[in-house]
């Protein structure tokens, strides 16, 4: 987010709405109305004086109305833009022309009541709609006592309560008496899966956040008694089922399968009654009730639909289709995030990148025509060469650090250290105004080394490095002391020891900073092509996107034909002809001038680095070398092969895909059929594979409905554990129930059994509602086997990309980098990443295409400067380094008469094994020199310790 605020090519227009969208794709004219902030963004220093002096209280919507702020305020400390604004509705000056106190107190002169609303007319080539989601009506919540009983909260409110920067600083208290609650109930599906309020869909995220909020609450208050009331536990995302299980076991959260109809208040406490699946009635008293509210379509969905001229679906979300999940009904207008349908963060982020790819396909001719390139001022080499002049900035991080560590004491201590000429504390050093002020102070004091004592360099170093660059200093001249993640947060109970530790860490950082040296910022050219592994739906979708963005693609498929698992599908989940979707895609791929398809081909090896890979592809007994800049793994997965359930023993036992294939050829096989039994979670969720395969529930429902369509007198039974028909798929589930399809829950301890008889087969299972065993003679048993990983293990070794414990490829970061793998320049999509539907695969493929196209579009990649350097005068050419380097990044070369070691900078990962094994200490690491590490060790001792 901070990056968006810093990018010169992103213009943030706040307080604004779209009023009209005219023209055609490539040449739209967007009319935008912008309301005044009344505070000049460029002048505001975010000091907060205006908030302090304003006499007008307003409820703090950022803190879910749990707190009070004033008319001029900022939503939260790290907000972007980092400028205050005035709430026009509440302000006395705006409405009554009185007061004006804030303008008088503002020393920066930033408050400007002369601002008028602006009308902007923007020429754009494409539009991406990402307005997010709306909130469930209060009316729906009132049924559960919300608004009537103070201790009934929404999950969003509860989220703020558990947050350290929230209104209660993370203490969970009852709003009615400010006392900590002992028993909390979470009610799921509030405003979701509920036709009475018009929201028949599943919101897809509430199960996860309820478990998260319950875990966080238990983390704060281990004695809390928490119950979550579910209908189905829908943790179908990648790794979510395991996380749920862990949370349930670790925190002892009670999971109750029941829908609570209402909430009553009795003697200041909240009374609930519910019925469990076995028909028993229960009741209980709770101190607090949290309503897990669903995601609605945005409040302004209809306005957006009118203005942008796009259609909505029957729930007022944006209308899209399975084969083009990010396209609206208007060409050139795309959609991403929850407006397309309720979804979680990883999926929103994926769709966002996917929408970017489609816009980039559309406008590839106009790439770089309107962007601004930033040039950094030239490095002040002379200043860098001067004696170290160190500035130390100690961050409060709000209460995150200052709540534990005595920040001022650490700051003053820093002032006593040699070489330090400036020492200050900052509230949030990563906020934009703080960065600005740090930059100014560096200039004013002619600093040439900077120590930021704040959070982790892993997350924030790039930010401060860029600040240095922006004022003509080499980015390698900043060092961070991690006094938050590795100090304040982990020693919360020992403020004194934490403060001592912080001082030590600062002393060590300053010692290292004294020895920091400027490092080169090399860049290398990029080979402008992509290698894509896998010719299924995901591989083809990403190939088409990259090709349409104007780059060459080599598509490698191991079988004879393109298509992958899509070849086995007959209908998509929204009822389209899957064969046609496949045919269209294959045709486009084959006809595209930028795509070269290699079938019956395999990746044998890959070397190089982002921008310059060289791969060996074997094909029909021959091998060839291919150069490419990036790579996408889209190797797919496969249908799990069921074990047991008489599968393979009786022709009456099929898998869902086999059923689909049969159905597509005609219905004669159903002629004498009476009972069809479907069994869910075959192989999934702990039977053989531990993960949930995500779409088998929906697929089973889809096929059950298809069977009913073909032969309406069939009796269909679906044995399931939790029906996970998330999002709009819930519609299919409801339809299936209405058509009389029987859904029977089973537990893993009592799985249904398929028994072969002399004539035909029967299914024996336990029915929890009857409380007894059930026997169904079945004409057909359809198993829903999960999605198993493909042959990922070998590929994982070739590419050096890690797998999850379930055997799927692991993404670089589950939320923020969902389509990248740990190896730079290698991206991931489709079933190779984890089980998902066709529409999700296509969206993810587009996202991978966007990420992969970034280095291609830039044409150059920066090489990390932390690499080894060989002092060739000291090198004796022993070759120890060459033989030990895990990345083949150092080799012996003839220099004059002798062999000397030389680093291949672009391949070097900076591990330093060469340096630590060099007999003559001839190798040093950029940013981690022997001297610097020694200095840190010496500074470790409070009395100081010298090298001898």
């Amino acid at each position, binding site marked *: 987010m901070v990056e968006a605020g810093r990018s010169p090519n992103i213009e943030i227009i706040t307080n604004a709405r779209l009023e009209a969208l005219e023209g055609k794709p490539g040449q739209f004219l967007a009319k935008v109305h912008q309301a005044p902030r009344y505070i000049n963004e460029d002048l505001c220093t975010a000091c907060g004086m205006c908030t302090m002096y304003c006499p007008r209280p307003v409820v703090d919507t950022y803190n879910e109305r749990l707190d009070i702020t004033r008319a001029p305020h900022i939503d939260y400390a790290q907000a972007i833009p980092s400028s205050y604004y005035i709430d026009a509705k509440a302000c006395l000056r705006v409405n009554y022309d009185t007061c004006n106190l804030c303008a008088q107190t503002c020393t920066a002169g930033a408050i400007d009541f002369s601002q008028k609303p602006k009308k902007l007319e923007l020429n754009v080539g494409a539009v991406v709609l990402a307005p997010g989601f709306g909130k469930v009506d209060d009316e729906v919540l009132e049924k559960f006592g919300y608004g009537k009983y103070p201790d009934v909260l929404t999950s969003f409110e509860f989220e703020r309560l558990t947050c350290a920067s929230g209104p209660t600083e993370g203490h969970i208290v009852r709003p009615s008496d400010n006392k900590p609650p002992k028993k909390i109930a979470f009610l799921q599906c509030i405003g979701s899966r509920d036709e009475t309020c018009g929201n028949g869909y599943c919101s897809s995220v509430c199960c996860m956040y309820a478990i998260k909020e319950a875990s966080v609450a238990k983390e704060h208050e281990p004695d809390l008694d928490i119950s979550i009331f579910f209908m189905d536990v829908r943790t179908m995302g990648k790794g979510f089922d395991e996380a749920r299980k862990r949370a349930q076991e670790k925190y002892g959260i009670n999971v109750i399968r029941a829908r609570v109809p209402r909430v009553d208040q009795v003697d200041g406490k909240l009374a609930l009654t519910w019925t469990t699946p076995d028909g028993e009635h229960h009741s209980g008293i709770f101190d607090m009730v949290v309503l897990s509210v669903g995601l609605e379509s945005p409040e302004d969905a209809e306005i957006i639909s009118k203005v942008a001229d796009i259609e909505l679906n029957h729930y007022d979300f944006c209308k899209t289709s399975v084969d083009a999940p990010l396209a609206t009904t208007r060409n050139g207008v795309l959609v991403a995030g929850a407006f397309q349908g309720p979804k979680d963060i990883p999926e929103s982020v994926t769709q966002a990148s996917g929408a970017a790819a489609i816009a980039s396909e559309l406008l590839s001719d106009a790439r770089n025509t309107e962007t601004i390139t930033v040039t950094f001022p030239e490095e002040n080499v002379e200043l860098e060469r001067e004696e170290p002049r160190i500035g130390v900035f100690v961050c409060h991080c709000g209460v995150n650090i200052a709540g534990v560590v005595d920040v001022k004491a650490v700051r003053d201590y820093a002032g006593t250290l040699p070489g330090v000429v400036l020492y200050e504390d900052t509230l949030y050093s990563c906020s934009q105004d703080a960065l600005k002020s740090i930059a100014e102070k560096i200039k004013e004091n002619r600093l040439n080394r900077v120590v930021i004592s704040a959070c982790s360099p892993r*997350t924030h170093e790039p930010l401060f490095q860029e600040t240095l660059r922006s004022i003509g200093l080499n980015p390698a001249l900043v060092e961070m002391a991690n006094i938050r993640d590795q100090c304040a947060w*982990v020693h919360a109970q020992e403020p004194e020891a934490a403060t001592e530790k912080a001082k030590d860490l600062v002393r060590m950082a300053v010692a290292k900073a004294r020895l920091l040296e400027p490092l080169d910022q090399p860049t290398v050219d990029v080979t402008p092509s992509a290698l894509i592994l896998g010719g299924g739906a995901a591989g083809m979708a990403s190939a088409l996107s990259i090709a349409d963005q104007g780059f060459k693609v080599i598509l490698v498929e191991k079988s004879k034909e393109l298509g992958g698992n899509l070849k086995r599908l007959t209908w998509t989940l929204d009822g389209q002809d899957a064969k046609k979707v496949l045919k269209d895609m294959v045709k486009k791929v084959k006809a595209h001038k930028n795509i070269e398809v290699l079938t019956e081909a395999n990746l044998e090896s890959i070397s190089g680095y982002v921008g310059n890979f060289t791969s060996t592809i074997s094909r029909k007994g021959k091998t060839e070398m291919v150069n490419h800049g990036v790579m996408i793994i889209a190797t797919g997965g496969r249908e799990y092969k069921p074990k047991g359930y008489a599968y393979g023993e009786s022709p009456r036992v099929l898998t869902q895909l086999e059923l689909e294939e049969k159905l597509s050829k005609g219905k004669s096989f159903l002629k004498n059929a009476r009972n069809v039994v479907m069994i869910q979670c075959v192989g999934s969720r702990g039977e053989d594979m531990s993960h949930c395969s995500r779409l088998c529930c929906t697929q089973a429902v889809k096929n059950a409905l298809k069977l009913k369509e073909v032969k309406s007198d069939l009796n269909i039974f679906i044995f399931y554990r939790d029906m996970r028909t998330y999002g709009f798929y819930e519609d299919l589930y409801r339809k299936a129930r209405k058509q009389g399809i029987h859904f029977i829950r089973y537990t893993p301890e009592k799985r249904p059994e398929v028994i072969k008889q002399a004539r035909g087969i029967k299914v024996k299972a336990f029915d929890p509602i009857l409380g007894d065993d059930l026997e169904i003679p079945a004409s057909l048993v359809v198993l829903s086997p999960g999605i198993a990983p493909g042959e990922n293990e070998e590929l994982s070794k070739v590419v050096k990309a890690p797998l999850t414990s379930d055997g799927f490829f692991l993404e670089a970061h589950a939320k923020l980098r969902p389509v990248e793998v740990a190896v730079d320049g290698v991206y991931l999509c489709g079933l190779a990443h984890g089980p998902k539907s066709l529409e999700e695969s296509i969206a993810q493929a587009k996202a991978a295409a966007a990420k992969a196209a970034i280095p291609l579009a830039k044409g150059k990649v920066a090489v990390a400067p932390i690499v080894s350097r060989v002092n060739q005068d000291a090198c004796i050419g022993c070759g120890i380094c060459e033989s030990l380097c895990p990345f083949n990044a150092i080799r012996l070369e003839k220099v004059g008469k002798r062999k000397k070691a030389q680093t291949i900078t672009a391949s070097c990962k900076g591990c330093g094994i060469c*340096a630590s094994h060099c007999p003559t200490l001839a190798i040093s690491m950029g940013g981690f020199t022997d001297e610097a590490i020694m200095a840190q*060790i010496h500074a470790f*001792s409070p009395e100081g*310790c010298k090298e001898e």
Partner: protein
Amino acid sequence: MAQENVSMKENDMAQTGFEPRILGFFCHWCCYAAADSAGVSRYQYPPNVRVVRVMCTGRIDTRFILEAFKCGADGVFTGG
């Protein structure tokens, strides 16, 4: 006897009052990241360790460890 008791107590006090100084060498990609994530999860652990970040444990040289002991470390924890 009584005297012995006192000295035992003193000894005990000294034992429990001893706060060792420990130097850690953490790998940027693994242990350092794990330590960060421990922070994010607000796990609590003793405040005795000071950390030197390295890009990989392969960077660690025997002399760094000896130097650390020489400079008064009671222990050295290397984390890959």
